[in-house]
């Protein structure tokens, strides 16, 4: 086995540990720190250090090492935490993340940042505890911190005992290559006094200041937890040390806690030790799977559903010919139910909770608010709302932008807020919830709200055509126009007017939309409405000529039978239809898509009123077939973009149906009409571009 195989595992684990660390740091109450949390932060740093050392990422290892030492003081109560120290720790975490990214892309991390953060951290150690930390040049094998000052003599002796404890580390069923690595690793952690054994069981006697848990945490980057057995050799006789795990060592913090206040904590520590197996079981109940594999399963299940529909069709044909068989039919309906359940279950694999997005915002809000000198309380609602993974990844950036924008333009400065009778601390709420087949994500603030008049004035200044009769909603949408910003001055955070249009574009490309509700002086609510998944679409199947097409159901408003009186010709070719006092452009699908044998008389066809990009159209089709969920298949994978078509899907009979793109069809129809009476040849059309201004 090659050690490089473990790199990815390390990167993923380290990333999780870093985000855990950040979360704990943010939640930490500096006045009354929770020792469990401090331990968790310390453990995260320690595990990263161990892994980084194993894989030879020295810069990361050294940074983590210094941070770990400081954290060690903090958890022992020798370093009093302050908000600015937490900030520095967060900064260190960021730098570690950068270093991690650098190693991942096989680059050397930024040396300057590394030196700077090491210096800052060492300065803290010097200032706060008068301790000179060992420099970054001597990793891992440092002497442990002195015993806590408030400790009793008993605790002190105990501490020393552990500090010098001899541990018997047994490696079970570990191949020789790995074993050599592990022994090297152990040498870093302490003094290896003897080693012997074979592949089945290899025993190392280690004199180390690190606890059994710490050692195991490091080893676990290479081998499984159940391949290690760590036994304390001399501590077993001691009463307080009896909670030291004598059997396979668990990987949580209990023994460390015990070191702080042995007498008082002995009982809880035991309890914690008992709880551990449960926790371990919970952790192993999830597995990492690559998205490709999941997508492959989704595809296969889609195929299965199609095959099942085909069989179903055959069975019902048989029934029509009265050669049906009751047990065959029972089997079919069972198969149908199972297949649907399977599809649902498989689709749910792709769904992940919004917590993955929301969890980064405490940090964003803290940093942004700090930069702006504002005080903000962040509230998140609906963390467990689930969303398709691909959407989760794509929603993060637009959401970050909206949050920053809200903090910058929305929430007022604390003094201003006080002056107008609002609480000093501004409130920012992030919420997510399901609404029909959509997910609704809101960014709400209780800030100044949007000033309609100022927006209009600014729009005029920027040469955007506006009128005073525009609805509030329309005026608020102006902020999404390119280059539009009402911020009085450009700040670090926002005000350049780039971004909001990108936000809107990104959300639209996910099939979603943004709405803004705002009240001057009371706050703004930005709502993002997204489909739950991109892989499945609620569609309306229609027929034109002999061909079946799918209209996205979300675009369909209504359908009606057009009468001659409601249709008006305009400037020759164009036709509009009057629907409840509104004139809508008519798009005859058979004309735009050259369908043969379609109904050409509009009064005999059906008009489907659809909405796309805020405009309404009437589409003439021959027949409505019905509503169905379809699996969206990309046309561009093997072919190319087709004007008027957004994607394809596979119908129950195994044939392909195209999914119509409303605005694309309208553009195509305009293009064709502009090309006029001259014969539009196919080559010409295939070079017709979607982006062509209509």
């Amino acid at each position, binding site marked *: 086995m090659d050690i490089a195989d473990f790199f990815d595992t390390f990167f993923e684990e380290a990333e999780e540990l870093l985000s855990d660390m950040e979360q704990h740091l943010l939640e930490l109450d500096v006045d009354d720190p929770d020792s469990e949390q401090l331990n968790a932060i310390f453990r995260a740093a320690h595990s990263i250090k161990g892994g980084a050392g194993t894989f030879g990422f020295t810069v990361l290892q050294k940074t983590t090492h210094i941070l770990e030492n400081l954290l060690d003081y903090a958890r022992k109560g020798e370093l009093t935490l302050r908000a600015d120290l937490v900030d520095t720790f967060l900064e260190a975490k960021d730098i570690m993340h950068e270093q991690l990214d650098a190693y991942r892309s096989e680059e050397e991390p930024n040396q300057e940042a590394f030196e700077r953060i090491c210096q800052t951290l060492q300065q803290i150690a010097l200032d706060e505890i008068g301790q000179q930390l060992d420099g970054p040049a001597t990793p891992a094998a440092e002497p442990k911190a002195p015993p806590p000052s408030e400790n009793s003599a008993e605790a002190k002796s105990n501490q020393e005992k552990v500090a010098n404890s001899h541990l018997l580390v047994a490696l079970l069923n570990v191949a020789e290559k790995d074993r050599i690595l592990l022994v090297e690793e152990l040498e870093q952690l302490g003094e290896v006094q003897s080693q012997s054994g074979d592949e089945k069981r290899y025993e190392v006697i280690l004199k180390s200041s690190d606890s059994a848990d710490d050692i195991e945490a490091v080893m676990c980057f290479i081998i499984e937890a159940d391949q290690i057995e760590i036994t304390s050799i001399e501590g077993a006789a001691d009463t307080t040390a009896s909670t030291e795990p004598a059997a396979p060592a668990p990987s949580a913090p209990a023994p460390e806690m015990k070191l702080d206040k042995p007498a008082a904590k002995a009982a809880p520590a035991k309890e914690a030790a008992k709880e551990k197996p449960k926790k371990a079981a919970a952790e192993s109940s999830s597995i990492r799977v690559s998205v490709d594999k999941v997508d492959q399963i989704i*595809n296969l299940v889609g195929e299965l559903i*199609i095959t099942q529909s085909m069989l179903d069709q055959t069975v019902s044909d048989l029934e029509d010919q009265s050669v049906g068989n009751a047990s065959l039919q029972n089997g079919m309906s069972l198969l149908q139910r199972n297949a649907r359940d399977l599809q649902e279950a498989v689709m749910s694999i792709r769904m992940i909770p919004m917590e993955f997005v929301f969890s980064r915002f405490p940090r964003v809000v803290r940093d942004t608010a700090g930069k702006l000198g504002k005080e903000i309380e962040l509230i998140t609602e609906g963390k467990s709302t689930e969303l398709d993974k691909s959407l989760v990844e794509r929603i993060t950036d637009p959401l970050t932008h909206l949050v920053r924008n809200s903090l910058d333009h929305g929430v007022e400065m604390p003094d201003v807020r006080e002056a107008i009778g609002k609480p000093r601390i501004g409130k920012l709420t992030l919420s997510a919830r399901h609404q029909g087949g959509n997910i609704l994500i809101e960014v709400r603030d209780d800030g100044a709200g949007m000033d309609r008049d100022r927006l209009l004035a600014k729009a005029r200044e920027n040469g955007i055509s506006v009128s005073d009769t525009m609805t509030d909603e329309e005026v608020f949408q102006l902020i999404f126009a390119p280059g539009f910003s009402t911020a009085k001055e450009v700040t670090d955070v926002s005000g350049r007017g780039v971004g909001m249009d990108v936000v809107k574009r990104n959300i639209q490309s996910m099939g979603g939309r943004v709405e803004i509700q705002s009240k001057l002086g009371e706050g703004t609510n930005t709502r993002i409405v997204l489909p739950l998944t991109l892989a499945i679409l609620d569609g309306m199947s229609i027929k034109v000529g002999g*061909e079946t097409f799918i209209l996205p159901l979300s675009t369909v408003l209504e359908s009606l039978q057009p009468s001659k009186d409601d249709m008006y010709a305009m400037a020759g070719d164009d036709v509009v239809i009057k629907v409840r006092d509104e004139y809508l452009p008519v798009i005859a699908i058979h004309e735009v898509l050259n369908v043969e044998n379609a109904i050409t008389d509009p009064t005999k066809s059906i008009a489907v009123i659809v909405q796309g990009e805020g405009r309404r159209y009437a589409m003439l089709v021959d027949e409505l077939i019905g509503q169905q969920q379809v699996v969206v*298949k990309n046309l561009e994978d093997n072919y190319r973009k087709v004007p008027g078509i957004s994607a*394809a899907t596979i119908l129950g009979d195994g044939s*392909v149906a*195209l999914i119509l793109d409303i605005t694309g069809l309208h553009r195509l129809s305009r293009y064709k009409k502009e090309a006029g009476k001259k014969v539009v040849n*196919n080559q010409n059309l295939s*070079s*017709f571009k979607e982006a062509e201004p209509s």
Partner: protein
Amino acid sequence: MSQAKNGAVLAAEAENREFLVFSLGDEEYAIDILKVQEIRGYENVTRIANAPDFIKGVTNLRGVIVPIVDLRIKFHFDKVEYGGQTVVIVVNVADRVVGIVVDGVSDVMTLTPDQIKPAPEFGVTLSSDFLSGLGSLDDRMLVLVDIDKLLTSDEMALVESTSNQ
């Protein structure tokens, strides 16, 4: 067998190439067998509006949407019929899956390098750019098509051409 001799045989074999031979009308064409994914019948093709006439549409190949190109129309054959013998060769080119309609598939041939002759400059319909040569096999002549180049070319309109974007 000595090592040197062994090596020589391997080298010779490495230069031999296998081709799938198919017919368009009365002519015989061949493509590199390694490009071929599978061969299937012509059925259930969904038309794509406003596409060139030789692009018959798309079909469902076990959940993958695959465009179908009729080489007979592309090469301006007079007789284009779809029947039981009509076959679609599914090929893998440039990370894409494309089906090509032909009149029939006959066999797989191994050609040695000296059996492959350079293609002369000819034809407007099938530029010699898209040929990797002519294969001569006894009294048969195989037109060796460079299917990669042909299907990714601008005139096939199968891929988004870079100049268009």
